[in-house]
């Protein structure tokens, strides 16, 4: 009878008296929601962290205008130093596991991310699911200070918007995979703060295309149309909307894409390598600003051709930029070659930077318009205005 009790008491003592207890209450933590990295004039790293201020639910009464976050800034040689500097300004322990987004300023990205990224793989408190984005033109610090009306703060808003899809969203994991694979280069999304005339009430941000890296250095940007092309090329198109103008000023049509696929095939070639990109997609016609009666098959074809041409143009524009201007294989053509002909890849691997800009890439697009919505021609048109 006495032995089990003794056992329980001793076990309880083991549990309760050990010194190394890593228990931390939630209200002893400072949650880093998003971090912005800048390059200072002295060439040091500068980190601006956005720390969430937990809102007390149900405690209404005038303090709705309370800030949802505050920003701390520190600079240093590397992350450890940054962390130390930041912790000195905090009464609570900095907790990075809930960081949703990492913002990199354009200046820092152009200098190269070699000494910025390592900590995100070494420190277990960091998540590889964190989004990474480049802030164009401005300091990255500005973006974490945007007072965005939705969500807990701008970082959370960016995270939510990114995961919504339909645009380029790159996590640390994607970035590392692209950076470390054979014959591919990383891209990231691009964000810009929009503060119209310093009006703090209307602070917003905007996604403005993609940042193309060469190695770990920023090579340049793609605009929004070209980014759509990039999404097609990288097979991340998924759900999206495409609009196209019909030739001869007929008007324009728009479709909602639901299944998009891409297939890159290596065709061969001697000194010049040849690829074919085949893009297919399915979807419904949702907008018809022409006088065509799209319930007729031949008219639907016209709309379809126009849309296909538009997609092809986007992809070609994108290809031109990444091939000729930035010379960075962000769509992973090298990877395709590596997988289909590993021997050939071995030969040209080291001069791929030279070979890729000269590669001949053909694009074929096949869109399938399955449905036209509920109306054939626009309903507001009179009968004689409709083109059959």
């Amino acid at each position, binding site marked *: 009878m006495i032995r*089990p009790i003794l056992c329980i008491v001793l076990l*309880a003592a083991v*549990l*309760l008296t050990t010194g190394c*207890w*890593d*228990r*931390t*209450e*939630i*209200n002893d*933590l400072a*949650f880093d*929601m998003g971090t912005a990295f800048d390059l200072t004039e002295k060439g040091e790293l500068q980190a601006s962290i956005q720390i*969430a201020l*937990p*809102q*007390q*639910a*149900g405690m209404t009464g005038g303090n709705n205008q309370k800030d949802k976050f505050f920003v701390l800034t520190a600079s240093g040689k590397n992350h450890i130093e940054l962390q130390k500097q930041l912790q000195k300004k905090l009464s609570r322990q900095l*907790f990075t*596991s*809930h960081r*949703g987004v990492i913002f990199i300023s354009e200046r820092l990205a152009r200098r190269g991310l070699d000494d910025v990224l390592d900590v995100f793989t070494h420190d277990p*408190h960091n*998540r590889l699911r964190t989004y990474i984005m480049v802030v164009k033109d401005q300091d990255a610090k500005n973006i974490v200070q945007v007072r965005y009306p939705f969500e*807990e703060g701008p970082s*959370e808003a960016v*995270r939510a918007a990114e995961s919504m899809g339909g645009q380029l969203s790159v996590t640390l994991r994607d970035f590392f995979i692209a950076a470390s694979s054979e014959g591919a280069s990383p891209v990231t999304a691009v964000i810009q703060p929009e503060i119209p005339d310093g009006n703090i009430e209307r602070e917003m941000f905007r996604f403005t295309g993609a940042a193309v890296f060469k190695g770990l250095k920023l090579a340049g940007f793609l605009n929004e149309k070209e980014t759509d092309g990039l999404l097609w090329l990288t097979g991340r198109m998924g759900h999206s909307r495409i609009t196209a103008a019909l030739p001869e000023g007929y008007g324009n049509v728009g479709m909602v894409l639901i299944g998009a696929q891409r297939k890159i095939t290596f065709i061969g070639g001697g000194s010049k390598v040849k690829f074919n990109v085949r893009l297919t997609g399915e979807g419904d016609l949702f907008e018809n600003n022409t006088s065509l009666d799209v319930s007729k098959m031949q008219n639907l074809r016209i709309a379809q051709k126009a849309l296909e041409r538009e997609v092809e143009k986007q992809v070609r524009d994108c290809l031109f930029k990444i091939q000729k201007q930035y010379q960075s294989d962000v769509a992973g053509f090298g990877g395709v070659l590596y997988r289909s002909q590993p021997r050939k890849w071995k030969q040209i691997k080291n001069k791929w930077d030279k070979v890729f800009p000269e590669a001949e890439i053909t694009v074929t697009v096949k869109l399938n318009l399955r449905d036209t919505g509920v109306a054939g021609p626009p309903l507001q048109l009179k009968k004689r205005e409709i083109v059959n």
Partner: protein
Amino acid sequence: MDVKTGKDRGKVPFEEEDHGELVPDLAYNETALKSIFRGCSDVIFRSIRLGGETRWIVVYISSLVDKKMLDEHILSPLIKRRTNPNENVSGSIEALDDLFVSIGEIMLASKISDLVRYVLNGYAVVLAAGNRRAMAVSVSGKAQRSLEEPTSEPVIRGPKDGFIENNSTNIGLIRSRLKTSRLKIETFTVGDLTQTEVALTYIEGVADASLVEEVRKRISEIRIDGVLDSNNIEEFIEDTAFSPFPQVQSTERPDVVAAGLLGGNIAILVDSTPFALLLPMTFWAGMQASEDYYIRWPIATFVRWIRLIFLVIAIFAPALYVAGTTFHQEMIPTSLLLSIAGSREPVPFPALIEALLMEIIFEALREAGIRLPKQIGQAISIVGALVIGQAAVQAGIISAPVVIIVSITGIASFTIPRYSFANGIRLLRFPMLFLAGTLGLYGIALGFLGILLHVCTLRSFGVPYFAPVAPLSLRHIKDVVLRVPVWNKTSRPPAAESEEQGTR
């Protein structure tokens, strides 16, 4: 396994004294009985005289006999005989037998101690002059309540009668459900002072004969002064006393007992309590309500799954909350974490203390609700809900998520249908809470393993407690995670495995 006997308690068991035999002298017998019943004002000695001398004495306890029966079937025939002197008055006790033909149960006894026992059990004892034997006539009419719906196990659909505090009525309720001569009822008398009737009930050929023998042995070895509820019996015969899980199922419902008997279980009915015992019991029996078999099977299956989910919640929810908020903040979705952090902002206690405090208060409320008279019980629940649900949160002493977790846990523990089983489950969350508060998820995993290990090693009268899941028996598992239609249920539960392989 050894059963605790009276000697273990360091006490000499109380034995009924031997008072010797009756003698032909009626006056002597009367004195003997009166000296035994001295100070017992409820024992009545009714002398009936004939021709100037006392011929018969009727001894009974007024509160235990049915007065109407006593008047009609004993006193009036005796008195009629007195007023009708033409009849041949025979003094022999056998002649009385002819008088009391309208009575069902009649015994003859010559030992005074036997007579005392009869009187105490509600018989009327008739002593006749010149006889060495007396007659005990069953006219017992104890005060008893009428059959009511069981309060501890209510059902929406299904039989609504429940056991009462009278064993013969209870046995009748079972017998009326199982009209077979194979239903055996063996009675024992347990309790030196209470002399409580304990009935061992089983269906011959369905229940395991060796199990019946074992239970018989364990019951007859019980030495105790008084048996006031079947739990007194339960604690004597169960295998493992140090377990939160009951190894004997107790029920107030005759249909549950009948179903158990059909499934090869053994029932023990104890006089003066409406709670019968069913054994062996398994973990899964604790999770099943009798109504599972009275509603359509898809619904019953769904309800069983709900119970399983809430069983897990009842044990682990507060522990998971504490582990998550004090050790594994990275595992909580960001927006949820921020709202928890927001409500924890003013709270002065660590999450473990907070959860512990609320759990204990909840238990106190539950206990208060049971013990108090029904009218005040209402007030308790209102005060509890208001004070703890509203005021404590608004005052910033307790955070709202903890209140939510504790209420969900409370509701979850009430979904477990067997009361004694639910109590065991309710107890388990406290060690889990401590483990979670000291070791986090690792502690919860350890605790879970510990519970699993205990449940898997536990045995109830030779049947593994976790059967048929561990050891796995695919044939029987149909009735655990599912409730297959009755026509599909072709095998008896594991308790009856060794005997005939009957259907249903």
